[in-house]
């Protein structure tokens, strides 16, 4: 059976600063099954937004093909638009209109008559907990309220596929949690969700499967558990109380396992064997050697480890400079 989203060798290039083509999305293949939450993870400038804009028909591919809800994104763009809901990276709202008016307008554009559009607007305002703000102009909304209204607008025609492009970027933790809950609720009701994010935790929390993109190419794909398993076994991080005992501890532990780069100058990090989870032997050995341990942590592999393994560097933190390709998209 065909996937609800099928992408084959999709490419999009922009003119780079030197005039040469710059590939923002470079031969991406992926498939999303009906009812899945697919997390598309990548740092700023990796090509996430470019890919989403192609899939939602806002940007034409340079090469390759894609089908969404059974429709070709280029030849059947209108049918794709009827089948999907979209919230883009920046909440696309008219600040002069009220929340109720925006939802009614959106409902009208999707073919609902005046009365039905008003009923739908009321229903969605209630669903995203914005009934109190419905009569207020959107310009007065907080960031979290705008995001929720944007999400409500994308649900007006009850789409089977929902694209969420970094829906929680810039939101406070509480607003983020509210949106996560809504995504889970929508997915439980049968909506397929294609979620781009630059937050490792978000992909881990929400996605059934994750695709990791870097420099326009998918570098890893699978369930979060599968990807973490690829990244290897757990790590043990030991923080030593007395820096003078660090050499003794290093000698002791390196005789048992290979050491990794530590987080700080008074800690040691070693990779455990796959399946190994018992900390006691290490604690006992250090204790018998007279080394005072402040803290000992068993660290499970994370998606950051997957990213590190695939690209050779850690996942950039929020706020890093976007790459040239996404800067071109932003223009």
């Amino acid at each position, binding site marked *: 059976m065909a996937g609800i989203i099928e992408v084959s060798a999709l490419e999009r290039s922009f003119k780079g600063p030197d005039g040469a083509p710059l590939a923002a999305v470079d031969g991406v293949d992926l498939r999303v099954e009906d009812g899945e939450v697919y997390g598309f993870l990548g740092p700023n400038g990796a090509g996430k937004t470019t890919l989403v804009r192609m899939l*939602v*028909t*806002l*940007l*034409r591919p340079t090469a390759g093909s894609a089908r969404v809800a059974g429709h070709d994104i280029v030849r059947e*763009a*209108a049918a794709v*638009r*009827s089948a999907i809901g*979209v919230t*883009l990276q*920046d*909440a*696309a*709202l*008219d*600040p*002069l*209109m009220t929340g109720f008016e925006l939802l009614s*307008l*959106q409902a*009208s*554009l*999707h*073919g609902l008559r005046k009365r039905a559009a008003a009923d739908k607007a009321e229903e969605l305002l209630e669903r995203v907990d914005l009934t109190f703000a419905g009569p207020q*102009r959107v310009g007065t909304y907080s960031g979290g309220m705008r995001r929720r209204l944007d999400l409500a*607008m994308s649900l007006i025609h009850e789409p089977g596929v929902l694209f969420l492009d970094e829906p929680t970027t810039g939101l406070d933790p509480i607003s983020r949690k509210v949106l996560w809950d809504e995504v889970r609720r929508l997915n439980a009701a049968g909506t397929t969700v294609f979620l781009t994010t630059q937050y490792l935790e978000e992909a881990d929390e929400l996605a059934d499967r994750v695709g990791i993109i870097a420099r326009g190419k998918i570098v890893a794909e699978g369930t979060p558990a599968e990807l973490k398993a690829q990244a290897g076994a757990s790590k043990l991080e030991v923080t030593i109380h007395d820096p003078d005992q660090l050499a003794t501890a290093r000698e002791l532990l390196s005789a048992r396992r290979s050491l990794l780069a530590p987080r700080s100058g008074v800690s040691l990090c070693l990779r455990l064997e796959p399946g190994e989870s018992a900390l006691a032997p290490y604690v006992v050995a250090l204790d018998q050697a007279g080394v005072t341990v402040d803290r000992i942590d068993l660290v499970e592999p994370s998606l950051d480890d997957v990213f590190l393994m695939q690209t050779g560097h850690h996942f950039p933190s929020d706020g890093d400079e976007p790459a040239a390709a996404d800067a071109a998209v932003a*223009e």
Partner: protein
Amino acid sequence: MNAGIAEQLRLAWVLVRRGLNEVLRVPGASIPGVVAPTIYMLGGYSVFGRLNLLPGFSGDDYLAWILPTAFIQAGVFTGAATGVNLARDIENGWFDRMLLAPAPRRVLVAGVAGSASIRVLLPCVLILVSGWLAGIGWPGAGTLAISIALAALLAAAMACWACGLAMKFKSQDAAPLMQTSGFIAFQLTAIFAPIALLAPWMRAIAQVNPFTYLLDAVRQGWIGEISWHDTWPGLLAIAGMLALAWWFAISRIRRMDA
């Protein structure tokens, strides 16, 4: 969504109403475009009010001569302002939301152009009230209808042109181009004096300038009688301008995803 004509008109009307929001909610933003044609008319009348004594004017009241130009200017300014608003919608992402709707692209353009046609009524009313206070007589219902209808059609044409520019440049930085292109084209017509009194180079331009024929069609009833002879070239001119501007806007909206 394969919308029929009635459904497309309904969708366009929804967008027209949305386009009128700014007038109602930020009236201050509309003031320059509403007031400018009247100021231009009254200024022109105050400075050149006795030009009608020159041979070639046939003794026309100069206010009746200059007032119709304000209708044309109202169409030009309102259309340009509509394009600037669209550029702002593109910049803040709202237009992406419009493009994601399954409504046909031509409906989106028609909605924007339609809002310009209605917004132009505001400066038209101000022109008429100011002209009346300055002493203009009742021109007759026909003259009034032609003046307002052509101003509305011109506003739609200029809105299509300006929206095409907005979609090409995707920035309010294109605002000067939207505003000056129509303004300059209109200046190269018989605004202040009959075409026969213009300098040869300007007369040559005015004779091929569609704004000239549009202005003649609006002006005819204010300075004389309405005739088919002066009407059809104006209708042809506005039809041509609308067709070209519509084609430009539609081609640009279809290239928004390129």
